[in-house]
């Protein structure tokens, strides 16, 4: 059974990734390991937007899945976008081996509110589980009690839990079917 590797990308040192990994193991019932960090992601930077193209990052990460892992998830503090949207919290390749999550917009300070470290961690865990869910082929889920519910603004993330609903859990179970499209 393959593990999931968390890969620190620029800015990730601000976060306790060990804790994130432990929490992810509980949600996913899989080994979550910390990969070596990736320092240079300049090719994803778009100076006209002062943001990083998450698609480019995913292309990079796809080639960097550690030997003992079957998925790699980059974590970064830089702001991400896809060409047609103003920003994304994260992105993943549907059914593929790589995903990326940014906590730039998960931080209360981005919204002019006082810092809240616990809330930031809770949001980041949810976004990580969510993107990993996509890498196992899960689509957005209409169940409000499911981490695969889509979130287009941060308050929506706060409404959902960090775990999958029954149906989504069944699809990402290590010994269950690898993907189930709905």
């Amino acid at each position, binding site marked *: 059974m393959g593990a999931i590797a968390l890969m620190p990308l620029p800015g990730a040192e601000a976060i306790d990734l060990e804790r994130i990994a432990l929490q992810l*193991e*509980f949600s996913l019932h*899989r080994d979550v390991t910390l990969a070596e960090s990736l320092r240079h992601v300049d090719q994803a930077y778009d100076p006209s937007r002062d943001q990083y193209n998450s*698609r480019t990052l995913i292309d990079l990460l796809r080639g960097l899945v550690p030997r003992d892992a079957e998925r790699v998830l980059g974590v970064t503090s830089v702001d991400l976008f896809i060409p*047609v949207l103003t920003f994304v919290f994260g992105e993943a390749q549907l059914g593929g081996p790589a995903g990326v999550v940014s906590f730039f917009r998960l931080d209360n300070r981005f*919204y*002019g509110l006082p810092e809240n470290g616990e809330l930031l961690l809770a949001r980041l865990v949810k976004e990580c589980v969510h993107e990993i869910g996509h890498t196992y082929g899960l689509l957005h889920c209409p169940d409000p009690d499911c981490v695969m519910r889509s979130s*287009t603004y941060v308050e929506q993330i706060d409404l959902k839990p960090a775990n999958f609903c029954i149906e989504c*859990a069944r699809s990402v179970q290590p010994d269950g079917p690898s993907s189930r499209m709905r």
Partner: protein
Amino acid sequence: MSGQNGKILVVDDELSVRDSLREWFVQDGHEVETAAEAQEALRHLQDRQNEWDIVLVDIKMPGMDGMELQRRIHELDPGVAVIMITAYASVDTAVAALKSGAYDYITKPFDPDNLSNLIRKALQQRALQRENLRLRDQISDLERGNEIIGRSRQMQEVYELVRTVAPTDSTVIIRGESGTGKELVARAIHVHSNRRYFPLIPVNCGALAEGILESELFGHERGAFTGAHYRRKGKLEMADGGTLFLDEIGNIAKKTQMDLLRVLETKQFTRLGGSEVVTADFRVVCATNRNLELALQEGEFLEELYYRVNVFTIHLPPLRERKNDIPLLVEHFVCKYGMAMGKRIEKISPDALDRLMQHSWPGNVRELENAVERAMVVGHPPRLERDDFSLHLGNGPPRAGSESLEEVEQEHIRNVLEKHGWNITRSAEILGINRVTLYNKIRKYELRKD
């Protein structure tokens, strides 16, 4: 739960736009095709006429431009929603497109929430055109899935009421003892209403102190900075287009009741610290376990608010009045926690079930769920036994301050490990979880071999 997804065609000469929109929509569960130019788009429309819900069209394309394409699309399928994609400079053209029948326009790059809202609105409108078909389809799965569980006569009556009221926009109040599953009824109403494309936003009025409830409902803004970042969306804004579920409405402080009443009447409010008047369109479903009539008599509940929310009532029976639903509920929770814990428990012994049928369940379905969850922690696969359940006797609500689920689990794992000399493989087998999970739990609870 289906019916929220659509068929979307993206027409844009830029590959990166087509690709990123395709991925975005696919992950949202929509069916997507793309076309790089107008002729290709028209072919897609002709091939599957009247099947498309939304066509996104870039205004500026080489060859036939978006304006012309939009007219052709409407000749082929007058019902499809055409959304024009514009660059900042071409907003005037977009407005012209609206006049000639486009559904709306959106300027690149899109804010994810604006895009998602626009798609929901367009799908909702399309579904309304096809109304009778889809709504009928959905009602049949009302009592399945992770919605409300139960086949008893009492629950059939509840479903009947949900069916009746869901498609109307009427305010609903759900009454019943705590733990009966009022939120699930609110969800069922929402999912079977025309607002299902938009979110159901729950607010637990009882859990929030006065002052916090206002900021929770109305959101807030930093007066000094009006930059878009410096705001927090309140629940009313989040519920725009959807349903607001006010749980424990009987427990709101009097002062907040006044504010709430005003909002329910006007659907307008201002964020705390802000001055802009915000309008939100939401349906109200509320719930309470309090005797509101008594609260009214005692002057604790505002009369006007009472009449505003007391329009259509659904009473949820306590679990002791529908005990024949217990086996079905148990099966559901066993499956749910089995998944969450990665534990393969398939059955429950007749003896254990018998015990559950005898219990009076003062805490209702929630108490039953908790009992099953605990049993799943200590139970050995593949079957739950009578002794795996620890039930509170008597008629009072379950005692507070008893062991938490985590304590139960920690103790149980320690016992199994010690009994089997810390043999991980053997212990994991007995516990019915895999070894990774067992290692995680040992780390989590900081268990050590002495």
